[in-house]
């Protein structure tokens, strides 16, 4: 009976020991939102396993400078200037056997940028405008506005055939059908919203007239026709002179020349 007690007590203590010595990482802060700088720290507690070192991972890529061989269960990463590029998922990794890691999310406002700030379209043709976003977290909502007289009118997808909006978390495309010079020239604003807020960017749309390319085309065709005419007229003018020049010598020297030519031609074959 006593033996049974001892064994069960041993087993229980072992189990509890395992539970209580499971490595635990305390992160400070647990999440970074909309800050210009931060210091991320990880504290490895309740672990008896030897630590060979530690490093940090940003969005799946190891940060080379954060690699350290310190055996301390404490590691920090300084983010001096948080921009949309430095946002994302940060993981602190302790090189124990097995590895233990913990994630800290660094969230920023979305960074919305237009592919091209000035877009061209042809009249009665299709015009497309694209905005992309980088950062973390990616926008969940995209909206397009058209700037008219200082006010922004939203463009809603699906109401008319004219506008088509296709959005994915990192890219949005506004397609305008049947461009017209009077109505569609102007500024368009794309804005992306995530849990922290909204940012937007502006694109200027220019619509080219269908006939814009026609004038240079006609101009060059006219130039070609004029040049060809001049060349042919010049040639017609010179031709009668050339014929009289050619025939005179032929009469006097033809016999000698023919003989030379004929003899050589026969022999060279």
């Amino acid at each position: 009976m006593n033996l049974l007690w001892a064994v069960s007590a041993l087993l229980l203590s072992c189990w509890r020991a395992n539970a209580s010595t499971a490595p635990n990482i305390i992160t400070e802060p647990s999440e970074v939102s909309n800050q210009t700088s931060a210091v991320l720290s990880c504290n490895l507690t309740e672990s008896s396993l030897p630590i060979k070192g530690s490093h940090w991972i940003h969005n799946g890529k190891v940060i080379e400078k954060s690699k350290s061989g310190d055996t301390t269960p404490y590691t920090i990463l300084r983010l001096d200037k948080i921009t949309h590029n430095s946002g994302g998922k940060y993981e602190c990794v302790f090189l124990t056997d097995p590895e233990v890691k913990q994630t800290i999310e660094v969230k920023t406002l979305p960074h919305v940028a237009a592919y091209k700030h000035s877009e061209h379209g042809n009249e009665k043709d299709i015009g497309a405008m694209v905005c992309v976003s980088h950062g973390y977290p990616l926008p969940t909502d995209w909206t397009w506005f058209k700037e008219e007289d200082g006010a922004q009118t939203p463009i809603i997808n699906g109401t008319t055939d004219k506008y088509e909006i296709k959005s994915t978390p990192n890219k949005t495309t506004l397609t305008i059908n049947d461009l017209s010079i009077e109505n569609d020239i102007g500024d368009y604003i794309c804005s992306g919203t995530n849990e922290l807020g909204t940012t937007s960017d502006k694109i200027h749309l220019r619509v080219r007239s269908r006939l814009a390319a026609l004038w240079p085309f006609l101009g060059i065709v006219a130039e070609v026709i004029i040049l060809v005419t001049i060349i042919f007229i010049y040639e017609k003018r010179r031709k009668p002179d050339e014929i009289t020049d050619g025939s005179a010598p032929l009469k006097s020297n033809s016999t000698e020349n023919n003989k030379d030519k004929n003899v050589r031609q026969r022999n060279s074959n």
Partner: protein
Amino acid sequence: MPPAAATKLGYTPPDGGWGWAVVFGAFISIGFSYAFPKSLTIYFKEIQEYFSVSYSEIAWLSSVMLASMYAGGPVSSVLVNRYGSRPVVMVGGVMVSAGMVLASFGRTIMHLYLCVGLIGGFGLAFNLQPALTIIGTYFQVKRPLANGLAMTGSPVVLFTLAPLNQFLCDTFGWRGSFLILGSIVLNCCVAGALMRPVNKNVRPKPTTEPPECNGEATEKAATADTSAQSANLLTEANQDEIKSQGCVHKFIDLSLFKHRGFLIYLIGNIVMFFGFFAPVVFLAPYAKHQGIDEYSAAFLLSIFALVDMFIRPATGLLGNTKWIRPRIQYFFSFAVLYNGVCHLIFPLLPGYVGMVVYAVFFGLAFGMLSALLFEVLMDLVGPQRFSSAVGLVTIIECGPVLLGPPLSGALVDIFKDYKYMYYACGVFMLVPGIYFFIMHYYNYKKLDEERRHSVVVEIRTCEEAVQLKMSQDGKTGHETDG
């Protein structure tokens, strides 16, 4: 052998005068033929986005255009043999222009393939062959120089079209640009108008060959009438010959396949073209692969094009000198060999400086080769058969030209390194170079033998002609007596 080929012409080429205007016309035609397909690549990105197609589908456009240009060679030759250079070039110019204008209204990518690729390519073929052919009719003594100058059209037009295309693309979009390009290419018609058919009635200038036969005849002939009579006898026989040649020349001259020089040229060229264009195509990607930024990589191409531009007329001048002209085939073989050596050494050169050095030397090699490419063919087959020769050569070269870059690309993909591709291209140029040297040495020996043989026959025929005249004199003497 320039002397033998010249006598077959039956007239003396002007070697100047209006010939230089023709060279300018050929400059424009050749320039557009080679540079136009290359410069269209600037529009690919915009067209790709517009039609939502992949990059390989859009790259087909260039390939179709190049393929049509080479395949249209024989058709072009037949037309040039029949109608002369001028109408063919003008029709070609109109075709490319029409193709581009139609393409600007295109609704599908297939429409573009047909208009720009097929019609445009054929139009360019109609520009290339006649331009090369007409130089042969206008120049004999200064022909390498004329060829070198005309071939300079390619880099110069490319240099001009590339930034122009960028500007047009930004200002007018691809549709408007195609419309305007259609009108720019119409200038090929102006080039065609300049290609006046050469005047064959001009009295030949005193030639370098001693008129031995003539001298002997005048010594022994009594009157000018009898010499005219014997000349007439010979002329009739010759006219029949010319007529039978004319029938063959109406279509393509397939007897070229029995021509020794032509076969040497053809076989060497087929192997050479596998490694000809690929190094140019992959220069910028290789530079970027080595870690050089985009602008410096593009600058390499500019250096290459600039050196190419200046070396072509220089090569023409050099080929014209009295030391090189008689043995111009060796000069060509040297150019091919030099290309091969350049490519083989290139992967061993370190860093960006090494690449710049390579770009300069490769520009030199490429320019030399291009300037001589058609000059040596003219030298081998003579101006009369040149048009058929170039048609046959281009259609057979079509294969290597189209297969070369993709094969090289496959080599790069397999080995994940560009240097094996450059080694391969180097070998593809080295082997034909050596082959050309050996074969042309043999060919020159044979030609010298044939010339000696023909001179002997000439002397014999002269003696026969003189004897004929003497017997005729005797006859007329009898007639006047009796």
